[in-house]
């Protein structure tokens, strides 16, 4: 399969542009946080009566509601830009795939890019269902960092993959891992902010500025839980698909390869997270910490395992 270098150049261009747009979106979200009203006040606007009739008179609100305040507009622009960035990000992966004639996750650069796209999409989906726009900057920050590192340190030219990766399991196993890792990154950010918010709620003088602008601790907890509940079965499937592939490619379904081990460790941590939410005395803070540890394990698995240890999960280009 020959490599189409024009398409791959367009892919790189889309990638860089996507990062720039994400950064801009992040700044807009940060601006909303910096100048926006506090979360508590926004809650009240949601009062709606049966059939859309106002329940009670809202004297001073009529005027305010006709136009949105600047900070809110900035935040909404941030979301729009994130959608645009995601479209370019998707285009960059799709072009890579077209340029190389294979799925676009054959090396570390492409893999991390795909994981980040998974995270962005998970974030946008969550955004439709929960009013958690205030988290935008915090979700985008680690993604931008990951994408920057992938695009600079780990960048690999578009190219074919080694024989071991030529298998339809590359599509199944890696896509499951990409999506679950991406979603879990969002969950980790939510849990991290839950810890901030919970400390703020316990003592309003800690994290006074940041805490007052975050969504309620409950909402953050729910966001973290729902994303994890979505990601865990997918991660389980991904690990199992990996084991089936390993049986065909490496001669055993489980061999304690570093990547396998850390994937199992992450899985165990997320299992512990779900259990901790059902255990008296572990709900809330402790469960959130468990999820944050899971987040750390995921990032550790993304980077460290490929860059520092030598195992079978080394791709062309890096590791």
């Amino acid at each position, binding site marked *: 399969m020959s490599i189409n270098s024009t398409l791959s150049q367009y892919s790189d261009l889309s990638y860089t542009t996507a990062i720039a747009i994400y950064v801009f979106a992040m700044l807009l979200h940060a601006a909303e946080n910096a100048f926006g009203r506090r979360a508590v006040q926004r809650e009240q606007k*949601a009062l709606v009566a049966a059939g859309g009739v106002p329940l009670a008179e809202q004297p001073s609100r009529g005027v305010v509601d006709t136009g949105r305040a600047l900070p809110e507009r900035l935040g909404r622009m941030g979301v729009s830009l994130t959608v645009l960035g995601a479209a370019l990000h998707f285009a960059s992966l799709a072009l890579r795939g077209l340029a190389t004639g294979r799925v676009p996750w054959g090396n570390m650069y492409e893999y991390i890019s795909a994981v980040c796209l998974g995270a962005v999409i998970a974030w946008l989906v969550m955004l439709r269902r*929960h009013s958690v726009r205030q988290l935008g900057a915090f979700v985008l920050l680690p993604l931008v960092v990951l994408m920057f590192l992938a695009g600079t340190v780990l960048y690999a030219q578009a190219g074919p993959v080694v*024989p071991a990766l030529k*298998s339809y399991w590359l599509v199944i196993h890696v896509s499951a891992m990409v999506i679950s890792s991406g979603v879990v990154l969002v969950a980790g950010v939510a849990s991290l902010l839950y810890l901030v918010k919970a400390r703020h709620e316990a003592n309003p003088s800690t994290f006074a500025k940041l805490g007052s602008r975050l969504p309620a601790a409950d909402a953050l907890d729910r966001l973290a839980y729902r994303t994890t509940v979505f990601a865990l079965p997918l991660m389980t499937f991904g690990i199992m698909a990996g084991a089936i592939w390993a049986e*065909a490619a490496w001669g055993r379904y489980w061999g304690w390869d570093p990547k396998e081990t850390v994937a199992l460790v992450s899985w165990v*941590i997320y299992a512990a997270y779900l259990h901790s939410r059902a255990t008296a005395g*572990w709900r809330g803070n402790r469960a959130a910490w468990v999820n944050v540890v899971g987040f750390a394990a995921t990032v550790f698995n993304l980077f460290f395992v490929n860059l520092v240890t030598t195992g079978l999960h080394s791709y*062309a280009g890096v590791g």
Partner: protein
Amino acid sequence: MRSQIAAASAFLRNTWRGLTSMRTALVLLFLLALAALPGVLLPQYSLNSGKVAEYKAEHSTIGPWLDKLGFFNVFAAPWFAAIYLLLFISLIGCLLPRTVEYLRQLRARPGLTPRNLSRLPHHAERTVDADVDEVVAAGRQRLRGWRKEIGEEPGGVRTISAERGYLREAGNLVFHFSMMLLLVGLAVGKLVGYEGQVIVRADGSQWCNSGLFNYDSFRPGLTVDGTNLSPFCVRVDSFRANYLPSGQADTFHADIAYQAGDDLGTDRWNPYGLEVNEPLRVAGDRVYLLGHGYAPRFVVTFPDGQTRTQAIQWRPTSTATLLSEGATKFDPPGVTDPAERRKHQLAITGLFAPTAAYDHTGKILTSAFPMVNNPAVAVDVYRGDLGTDSGSPQSIFSIDERMVRDGRLNKVARQNLELGQELTLDDGTRIRFDGVEQWISIQVSHDPAQVWVLVAAVLVLAGLGASLVIKRRRVWLRVRPNGAGEGGGRTVVEVGGLARTDQAGYGEEFGRLAGDLLAARTSGTAPNKIVADRADPERTGSDEAGPDETSNKTQRAAAGGGHDRQDVP
């Protein structure tokens, strides 16, 4: 004595309770995760024993201690096994009572209808025109698939108590039991499985799985003594490796043939294309293509005019360029006296490059590319006693350096040879680099339990999915005649709902359900009574409600309280 027994049994009981509590299980899960980390951060014997030796040499103080404590073999270490065995005992202790409880619940009826439905997390109320019995009949219809209990209360009031989502707990139990099945399958595989590697030349050479000695390396399971290997033979006819100009491997393909069962001992062979990701599955074993390399062919013409030809595998020192090293050993022909023979044995050692490249001096050979474009060897030729008669084993890739040190084996030539070139030794012996042959290394694996591991894994996934997706939830309906006549209708219908587990998202379903249950022949003239859906601690609020539900919403209490409200008594 009696009190001692009581104390001992209390201790045992408390230990058991402690061990099987969720807290202990959580701690054990963390310990498991933590204990696995040295397996990633430190080199492991099972993955690369060379790196372990390197690490121990670099860390001479803690290295031996880490070794003694099993840190270089974490996943076989007793402390690692202790953690997962405790975890599984804890699991069994937790699961058995839960299974009993679940079976009991399967036969139990749904709970009584609470007195005050408006205190439930989900609640709706409306006055309708239909009479009590009609509403109950419609309710039964709508709640098809739910486990229901119809109740009567004084004053002509009727209730429906309904519950569904029992499969959640079933999924939960299946998940945990399957995890144990998976571990058992893994353990059985370690007991009765085996794994061996061997190099076979790709020139029509045959290899049979008939005994341990046929392997270059072999890792038996604990109960495997090598006597009962699955009988089959393979013949390697040819091998093709294709590399990209960058040196990256593109495809590996070995044309092989195999025979098993009744074909053994005959000349019936079944062809197979062995590739990476395409192992041969035969006689309950799997044959994998692990790697490949080259065997330079040398023709030695001895002073008396006799010639000997030999090609034996050389070992790649670099997977990127397949620069290889090895030793091709010759006995002098026609010499019957052992002492005399030991003076004239020959060994051709050195480097082989499939695509030769030289440094600036033009002398030092390296390889520029892993495919055979311009092969060359850089050889040292030794003559004397190779030590092959000494009885001690020696590597086929090298000569015995002790023989060199003892002066019994001497270097008699050093030269670079390209294909077809030859060198001449002082006694007139001529050595020609005649050609290149290929070899492949194959791995044979045997694990009869792995199919059970797969079955267990599928069950694990199904159980996990069921336990996370299915919600255990209840709904109650209380229908009472509208005595006071307020609201105009004849009958007051109240619906209450409760999710029994900490699974979020019951609100939407309840909204639809309550809508249907209350829609039954609503009074046309009567104004709808405000339908309250109390703040559900599981739900975010308006941004999550479906379109059906938004209109039902009249108030939202401040979100607060516990996340997973337990059952209402």
